């Protein structure tokens, strides 16, 4: 079989064979050849308004489906606009394949129109990237890209395709799995944990009197939520879920302590601090979790399960490092524990630890001062209402800042893959395009984007995409007229000297803007308007809705561990700080 087709046809056919059903993109000069065969393909293309939007949509899609998101854009400025989503996906280990156009091979290096060194620019923000120099290489490169993006520690892979490579004839050949593996001699992720280490981990778990399961986004990547629950219930140990892992363990489970870290709740933070064993699963000891590393969980031994060997010992030296896939490793650990129990060994007594933890939970629930009549609307109240009024299984996306932390704190995540946010990179403007991508991936679900007024103004134009492509999402803009998180830091750490954080009390008019983009716009200014507005938004399913909540600008996120300080020095809500001594 030696069928001759163009490189562009080969590209689209290869994407089809990889199971791609949606591409988020925007065409331009050098990628033009690839857009022609796309007309004849069953793949849905979603035409964005800015390339960054295409990248975040691909991420949102990948977050909720577990399948790689695909973005396709042209060369030069389109490729540079893609750098932020690539870096975002790299930091949060999101499987993504990005196709960029490139100037023809003969023009590379001549500073041709819309030429940039895409592969060079994106090298440090991708798991892998390739400039494809001949059309015959396209199918293998596409297969490699999907293999690399979705296996091991997932991440973004970029393929850069010069225009003539897309135009040239090639002989179609679809590589076998073996051919793909043979072409990647340096890529063999370790999946199975070391048996001796697994035994060691099981033994430590049995001996621990103050264990905490420290659960990160790796659990979701490994589709390990079920086996995690089995482990937690088997050893009856409390679970903290990091910002990237919200939903990996149900918030309404009695063992769930919620989110730890800089804006985690006091119980989750303190349980980690006082623990004697951190069972770390797919988490990476991020600075937002550890605070000052030297003072982090000083008495804890550490079991660290991660598929990326470079995470072992990067921040905290583990006592038991286990490189492998979280699901497979946890299954093995569960088995090893069951064997020890069957052989007559018993779990150490953790009742004292449990009662300490329930004491903290009682003393330090998440808290905000409710508004008095006539006061400005509290953002936390809006989120509580949104949580209680939205249908089960709602997917929540967020931007970056105060609204993100409140979302993570106040929402109840009882199901994996219902929380989409930008954790590692902290990309403002993430939520609207990510929510669109999430809705494309899960059209059966209600998708709410929670955004700040600062974030919303960075990527809101993608709501035009949502309207035109009939992707109905809902956006809650918590408008406090400020870059709220920066304002909070200036209030707390810069003596209330507010520098360049005040946006505008009246501009833009979010309702008019929403309407101009084909959405329904609703403004909410008082507590009694909150419920009807959310009910109305939830009842609309034929177009997107933007609800602007005019919220109290003075509201801060608590608890807070100031950057670089010890988790022991967590700042509690002022109305709880008198109870500080209970945090022992």
């Amino acid at each position, binding site marked *: 079989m030696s069928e001759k087709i163009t490189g562009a046809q080969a590209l689209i056919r290869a994407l089809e064979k990889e199971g791609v059903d949606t591409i988020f993109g925007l065409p331009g000069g050098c990628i033009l050849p690839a857009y022609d065969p796309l007309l004849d393909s069953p793949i849905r293309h979603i035409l964005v308004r800015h390339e960054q939007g295409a990248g975040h949509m691909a991420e949102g899609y990948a977050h909720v489906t577990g399948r790689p998101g695909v973005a396709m854009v042209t060369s030069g400025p389109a490729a540079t606009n893609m750098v932020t989503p690539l870096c975002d996906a790299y930091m949060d280990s999101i499987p993504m394949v990005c196709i960029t156009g490139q100037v023809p091979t003969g023009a590379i290096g001549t500073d041709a129109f819309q030429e940039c060194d895409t*592969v*060079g620019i994106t*090298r*440090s923000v991708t*798991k*892998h990237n390739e*400039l494809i120099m001949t059309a015959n290489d396209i199918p293998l490169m596409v297969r490699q890209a999907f293999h*690399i993006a979705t296996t091991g520690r997932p991440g973004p892979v970029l393929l850069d395709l010069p225009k003539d490579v897309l135009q040239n004839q090639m002989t179609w050949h679809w590589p076998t799995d073996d051919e793909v593996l043979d072409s*990647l*001699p*340096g*890529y*063999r992720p*370790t999946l199975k944990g070391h048996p001796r280490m697994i035994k060691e981990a099981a033994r430590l778990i049995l001996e621990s009197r103050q264990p905490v399961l420290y659960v990160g986004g790796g659990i979701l990547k490994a589709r390990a939520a079920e086996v995690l629950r089995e482990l937690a219930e088997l050893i009856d140990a409390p679970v903290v879920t990091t910002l990237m892992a919200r939903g990996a363990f149900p918030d309404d489970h009695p063992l769930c302590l919620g989110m730890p870290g800089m804006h985690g709740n006091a119980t989750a933070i303190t349980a980690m601090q006082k623990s004697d064993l951190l069972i770390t699963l797919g988490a990476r000891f991020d600075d937002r979790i550890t605070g000052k590393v030297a003072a982090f969980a000083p008495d804890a031994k550490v079991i660290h399960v991660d598929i*990326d*060997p*470079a995470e*072992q*010992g*990067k921040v905290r030296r583990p006592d038991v490092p286990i490189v492998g896939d979280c699901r497979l490793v946890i299954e093995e650990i569960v088995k090893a524990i069951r064997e020890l129990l069957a052989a007559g060994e018993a779990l150490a007594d953790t009742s004292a630890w449990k009662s300490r933890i329930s004491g903290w939970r009682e003393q330090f629930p998440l808290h905000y001062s409710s508004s008095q009549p006539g006061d400005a609307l509290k953002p936390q109240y809006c989120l509580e209402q949104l949580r209680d009024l939205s249908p089960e299984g709602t997917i929540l996306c967020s931007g970056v800042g105060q609204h993100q932390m409140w979302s993570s704190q106040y929402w109840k995540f009882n199901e994996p893959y219902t929380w989409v946010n930008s954790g590692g990179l902290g990309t403002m403007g993430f939520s609207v395009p990510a929510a669109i991508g999430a809705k494309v991936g899960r059209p059966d679900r209600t998708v709410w984007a929670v955004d700040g007024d600062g974030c919303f103004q960075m990527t809101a134009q993608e709501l035009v995409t949502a309207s035109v492509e009939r992707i109905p999402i809902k956006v809650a803009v918590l408008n406090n007229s400020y870059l709220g998180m920066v304002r909070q830091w200036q209030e707390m750490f810069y003596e209330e000297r507010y520098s360049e954080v005040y946006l505008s009390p009246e501009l833009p008019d979010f309702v008019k803007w929403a309407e101009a983009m084909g959405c329904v716009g609703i403004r909410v200014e008082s507590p009694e308007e909150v419920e009807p507005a959310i009910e109305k938004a939830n009842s609309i399913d034929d177009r997107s809705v933007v609800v602007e909540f005019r919220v109290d600008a003075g509201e801060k996120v608590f608890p807070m561990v100031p950057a670089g300080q010890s988790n022991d020095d967590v700042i509690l809500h002022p109305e709880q700080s008198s109870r500080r001594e209970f945090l022992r």
Partner: protein
Amino acid sequence: MSTTPAPAAHHILSVLVENRPGVLARVAGLFARRGYNIFSLAVAPTEDPMLSRITIVVDVESAPLEQVVKQLFKLIDVVKISELDPRRSVERELLMATVRVPAEDRGQVVELTNIFEGKILAVGVEAITVSLEGSPDKLDDFEELLRGYGIVELQRTGRVALPKLDREARTRPQKYGKAS
């Protein structure tokens, strides 16, 4: 990169990579991005035309070697990494130098080069180009002695290394294989 002698705590990484465009940029970029220092670097194809060997002398004061190795290993094009202990490996480097020297004193440089078992590569009216291949320490000594005459241009290749053959115990250099 630096031109001062390698610190006592240097480590040699022998990195086998796929012989493809951009590999060196990936390796160098990783060092820059993670804040690691390269002391010297040498790259060339191996006996297998599909593979190249990069010999990197790492300044381990800048980062724990373990992290450097693990991060390097994440590069898709990196096939194998061996850490070579300087005490258990053979190291070689090549030095070329042009020395400004009047004809009447040329004999001294020639004699010095002969003592070191180096080579005369080119002779001009008032200058001479010599080369020396050997252990980096020996090159350091030679360079220092040449300096007295006035070095016009100097080029060193950076070291390359292979494990010493052990005739007794079967101790092998520490290897970080990907297949497990």
